[in-house]
């Protein structure tokens, strides 16, 4: 059953060949068998999931119409609220925090009869590129358990890559969906900013954050996008119009005559291995009839600098609410108000979170704001402009997702080296564009690699179609890490 895509599972359920309860039990069994190795989940809502599955079976039996996500198990990154369950953001600070409302995406999934499994691991408050910054545990890469799955949505990526579930949700602020998707050999999609409601996503950098899915096929991503893209009145930055039918669009997808831009100059520094893999992907696009054009996106060299000013500035304000007054862990040492703030935050936050709060506070401080924050905003605007120019020459941009494949746990200690992970992914967040990572094969150590397709804002459909065409022609995502390719006994 673990080989089945979400769509295939749902079809079996709808045809009556399998019950929702069977699917739920199968999923829970696989998690029980394998997640000790992978460490993708922080919390499993087994009772709730089984209850929902039974209700769904009853619903179907009574002849009622079931939702578009019926009986599909979905894992949720633990910075997305599910009412009455713990949302930790992988932070000690929120160990005891019970969410008081459902994130819109979770509500939409419930309404469409998905089976929500539980919460997956992440870098604390989504700050990181390896999931090593989780306060609770390290998540392993299913292709090599000594490697990281990337991050920050490492738990959600690893769960799908190990075929513990066919779909999961992550959040992407600078590459946190696409990079782990590339590292774990699956599909990861960051939609257009505002396409998916952020209501209920614990904010890291509000102007960059976007929820998106992980799946083993582009079609599964298209399926879940239909549901999570619903218009939401609780998010002012949400695109208040219904999404197109992504799934049916895929059937007519074609790259024939499509102009695909590649910023060749910017890719010169890529390692030999990654470059070869990327070139092969380009050849596939050509063979599918795409017209590859050279574009100038040298401005991308500023993306990391701009990102770490803007994202940390926003984070410094977003994380100010974690003060030990209303919720979260209040320091036992504190004897007055100042100490409640100081000790609770000192004890509750990990080092990377503190780094970023400090950096963000600094770049917004009077005397420095013009040199850092304002300057970075200007470059961001310039970047939007440069991409606009690029998109006048091509309909989509093709780049690698990450400069390197998954690295060993503990290998990268220097935060600046870690930040370089996001060199190719950040731009899509800064310009609010849709971007997908699709598996593009393996390196000599059998570690997966990914390519990234970026489209103009609101062209999510075109991005999904191109990814689908490439996927159909290659099929790298069909390969399952062998350790996890066994049915569990029931």
């Amino acid at each position, binding site marked *: 059953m673990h080989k089945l895509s979400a769509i295939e599972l749902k079809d079996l359920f709808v045809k009556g060949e399998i019950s929702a309860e069977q699917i739920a039990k199968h999923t829970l069994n696989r998690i029980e068998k394998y997640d000790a190795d992978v460490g993708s989940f922080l919390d499993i809502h087994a009772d709730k999931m089984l209850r929902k599955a039974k209700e769904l079976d009853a619903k179907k039996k009574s002849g009622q119409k079931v939702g578009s996500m019926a009986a599909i198990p979905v894992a949720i990154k633990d910075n997305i609220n599910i009412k009455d369950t713990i*949302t930790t953001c992988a932070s000690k600070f929120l160990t005891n925090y019970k969410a008081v*409302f459902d994130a819109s995406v979770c509500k939409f999934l419930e309404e469409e009869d998905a089976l929500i499994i539980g919460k997956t691991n992440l870098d604390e408050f989504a700050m990181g590129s390896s999931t090593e910054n989780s306060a609770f545990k390290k998540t392993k890469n299913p292709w090599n358990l000594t490697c990281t799955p990337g991050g920050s949505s490492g738990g959600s990526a690893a769960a799908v890559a190990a075929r513990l579930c066919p779909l999961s949700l992550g959040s992407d602020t600078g590459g946190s969906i696409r990079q782990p998707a590339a590292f774990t050999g699956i599909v990861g999609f960051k939609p257009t900013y505002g396409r998916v409601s952020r209501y209920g996503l614990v*904010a890291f*950098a509000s*102007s960059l954050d976007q929820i998106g899915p992980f799946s083993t096929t582009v079609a599964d991503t298209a399926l879940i996008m239909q549901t999570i893209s619903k218009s939401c009145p609780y998010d*002012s930055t949400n695109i208040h119009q219904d999404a197109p039918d992504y799934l049916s669009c895929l059937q007519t997808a074609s790259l024939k005559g499509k102009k695909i831009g590649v910023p060749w100059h910017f890719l010169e520094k890529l390692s030999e291995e990654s470059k070869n893999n990327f070139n092969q992907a380009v050849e596939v696009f050509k063979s599918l009839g795409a017209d590859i054009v050279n574009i100038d996106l040298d401005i991308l060299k500023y993306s990391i600098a701009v990102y770490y000013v803007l994202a940390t500035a926003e984070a410094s304000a977003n994380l100010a609410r974690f003060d030990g007054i209303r919720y979260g862990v209040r320091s036992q040492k504190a004897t007055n108000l100042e100490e409640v703030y100081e000790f609770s935050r000192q004890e509750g936050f990990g080092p990377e979170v503190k780094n970023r709060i400090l950096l963000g506070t600094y770049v917004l401080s009077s005397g420095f704001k013009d040199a850092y924050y304002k300057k970075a905003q200007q470059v961001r605007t310039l970047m939007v402009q440069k991409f606009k120019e690029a998109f006048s020459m091509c309909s989509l941009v093709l780049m690698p997702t990450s400069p390197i494949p998954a690295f060993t746990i503990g290998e990268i200690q220097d935060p600046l080296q870690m930040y370089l992970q996001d060199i190719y992914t950040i731009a899509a967040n800064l310009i609010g564009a849709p971007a997908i990572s699709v598996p593009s094969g393996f390196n000599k150590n059998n570690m997966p690699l990914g390519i990234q397709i970026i489209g103009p804002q609101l062209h999510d459909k075109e991005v999904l179609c191109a990814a689908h065409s490439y996927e159909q022609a290659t099929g790298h995502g069909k390969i399952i890490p062998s350790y996890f390719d066994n049915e569990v006994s029931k």
Partner: protein
Amino acid sequence: MKEIDYDLWEPVIGLEVHVQLNTKSKLFSHAPNRFGDEPNTNITDVCTGQPGSLPVLNKEAVKKAVQFGLAIKANISRFSKFDRKSYFYPDSPRNYQITQFDHPIILGGSIVADVEGTTKIFPVNRAHIEDDAGMLKHFSTFAGVDYNRAGVPLIEVVSEPCIHSAKDAVAYATALKSIMEYIDASDCNMEEGCLRFDANISVRLKTEKGFRNKIEIKNMNSFHNMEMAIESEIKRQIRLYSEHPHEDPKKLLRSGTYRFDLEKKETVLMRYKEEAEDYRYFPEPDLVPIVLTESYIEQVKAHLPELPHERNKRYTESLGLPQASAATLINDKNMCFYFEEALKTCKSAKNLCNWLIVEFTGRIKDSGKTLEQFGIKPENVAHLVNMIEDGTITGKIAKSVADDMIVTPSKDCRDIVKENPDYQPLQDTSSIEALIDQVLSENAQSIADYKAGKTKAFAFLIGQVMKLCKGKASPTIVNEILTKKLQ
């Protein structure tokens, strides 16, 4: 020591007024905007800054801000946006306030105010929308926070430094309050903290051009306190400069934030400016900018109600009310609307106004209720004034009728008059004549005085007659007969 000459100095004052808007729900959430409920009952995930919560702008608040902008003839920004203002305090649920920093919704405009009979125009710098904080409550061993107020919409109106006395400041604030009331943007209930004032104060010699260091007095919540606070701070600064004429004024008076101590009746330092927090403003990424179209603004403009100063003009010019009466009436919006209602059936605006602001106000002021709440219908008061006007009753009797109306508010005053024989005026002239004859026979001296040209004696004689008839005779008739008899 040399006497201080306060007249050499000119105070320079800028006011920042925070006005709570009377929208149904809060600025960024659907929680009710209501005062006086049990702590932490009018709250949502937004009001308590729950992780994952997001603000959604209340359109009603924007409309009220635009109405205010139009009322003071300001520029309405076609584009404005929100910013985060960061500071840690338990009453701030996200530890940043959502306010408008560099693109406020309202720019410029002016407030017209009456200062002791003179009309003054006070220019406004800007007005912006922001959310209120919660409230800290201190108990013996701990403190609690009530977030019911957190997220209540505010408009902060910032004046130019154009105010030069405590009286000016009060007049400005009163006029501002009145505008907010008449456009129905705020209930302006001072006891509930709907209106709060911060004053920036400096003084300079009248011959000086530039500004000296200013201090800010925060959070004054009544006109009276504000007047006292500004008055005392102006004197303090003048004394300080006068007593140290050779010192550098910049070092003598350090900029800072003060509060007014009601017991000591003086301003108390909270912190110096240099110690002030860095608010690290930056654009609020969770909200989209407010973009207003011409047609929206035109629509709001078309539905703008009559403003206080327009009303004042109408009352004094068309209705002939004295300026002071018009101002008193307009300052009490409930009474003013009551007056308008009564005027529909009343023959004399001037008398109606007097009866409302003097007689009835005096009779109900201890109840804490409005006339409407008291159960006296506006037309009932109108009928009372009409009865005086057409001579059905005398003014004296009317006062007794008004007393009865307070006791039986729902009873038609015309029935009260009809049913009480004491309220029937003396109609036949013969009995009035008899009373006049009696008074004349008892006051020979006054007759002599009158004939010697003392007009006061005439009034005295009228008074005596009215006393004798217990106010039931028409003063006009008494006047007529008496004049005739004295000729």
